[in-house]
């Protein structure tokens, strides 16, 4: 029986309750393959293929004036994907399920884009408030709606990622918490259900990372 259903999301460890669980964010540094030789090994090559694939996807979306920013979005994708994917393994902490981490990823991005856009391209930012082709009567409401949707963007990015991760992990923990107190046949059914859930979860992990980076790219390309 579980003391608390959410105890898997607790970053506090038992070593003087230091929040050492956050060290799972370093997994991406350790998994990152080092290039010692000229010809990449298979692990290197897999990383290179994945990065190239994501880079190609993001490259076509960014503004031509911000040509170097596809690096940061690709990096964000790899970081979030590794964090999500590693969190699926039994005892590893999912750091991207905490708002503190996802918000600290999305808020600086959005703030920097906003500050840069509003300081340099004043008119353009105002023009984005009203989408093309609205009838003139609706314009005041459109401005309100657009500005609100713009303001909540960091919140949506952060909450989407955190909520997806929390939901998935919660489901898995719930189903597997029946494990210790059930017979062997029930355990086999449970394992079957868990396999389905886990396949869904791994897909969700990768997709959420993708969504995060794509949206950040799109937001950045809206600024001239």
């Amino acid at each position, binding site marked *: 029986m579980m003391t608390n259903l959410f105890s898997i999301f607790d970053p506090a460890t038992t070593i003087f309750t230091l929040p050492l669980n956050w060290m799972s964010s370093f997994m991406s540094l350790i998994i990152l393959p080092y290039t010692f030789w000229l010809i990449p090994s*298979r692990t290197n090559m897999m990383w290179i293929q994945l990065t190239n694939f994501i880079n190609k996807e993001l490259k076509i979306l960014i503004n031509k004036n911000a040509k170097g920013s596809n690096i940061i979005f690709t990096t964000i994708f790899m970081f979030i994907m590794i964090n999500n994917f590693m969190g699926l393994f*039994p005892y590893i902490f999912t750091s991207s399920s905490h708002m503190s981490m996802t918000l600290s990823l999305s808020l600086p991005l959005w703030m920097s884009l906003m500050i840069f856009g509003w300081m340099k391209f004043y008119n353009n930012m105002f023009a984005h408030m009203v989408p093309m082709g609205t009838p003139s009567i609706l314009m005041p409401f459109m401005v309100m709606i657009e500005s609100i949707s713009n303001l909540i963007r960091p919140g949506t990015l952060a909450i989407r990622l955190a909520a997806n991760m929390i939901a998935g992990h919660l489901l898995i923990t719930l189903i*597997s918490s029946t*494990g210790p107190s059930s017979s062997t046949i029930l355990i086999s059914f*449970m*394992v079957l259900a*868990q396999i389905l859930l*886990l396949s869904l979860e791994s897909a969700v992990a990768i997709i959420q990372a993708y969504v995060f980076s794509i949206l950040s790219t799109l937001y950045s390309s809206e600024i001239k």
Partner: protein
Amino acid sequence: MLSRLALRNAQLMPIMARGAQSMSSAAGDRPVRMEKPSPVRHGIIPEEWFTIFYPKTGVTGPYMFGIGLSTYLLSKEIYVLEHEYYTGVSIFIMALVVIKKLGPTVAAALDKQIDKYEGDWESSRTENMKSLEECIENEKKEQWRADGQKLLIQAKKENIVMQLEATYRERLATVYNEVKKRLDYQVNIQAVERRLAQKQMVQWIISNVLKSITPEQEKANLQQCIADLQSLAPRA
């Protein structure tokens, strides 16, 4: 004399020693890349962990150690079979299926990419070498062609020398002919003069002799001739 030799050897020694040292160690200590990773058993456990047990316990040693250790951990509940464990079971089955099914195909695709990448580097190097060798070949051919030019010039020189000699000989012949003509002319003049002089002399002598023949001489000559004829007639 010998001391200078010793001094020179002493100067050369550190250079040779440094050269030998840098040649041997710089080439020998280079890290070599392994082609395949270290062998692992059951996909993750390194083979060395197994071979440590073999001298003391034999082949079943590591497995007994593993079973004993896990039994101890489970029974003392140092390893608690809680909810995460069942998640681990599901993940283990999933990972097993995925790796067994997709492992070889992914490995083959990655191998293809690696070989293509290496092939690009290798081909650029070999093509560069090939083009340089072709340049060397072309250079040699050009040199051979230049040698041919030398022969051509030599032939031309000989040709000109022959022509010079031919004209020389022609001129020599012309000179000879001219000189001979002039000399012949002189000779002919002299011959003509002599002939004329001779003819003139003969004419003069004859005319003078005819003039000096008196009539008595004529009669005496005639009498003589008749006497000679009378002496000769009876003999015939």
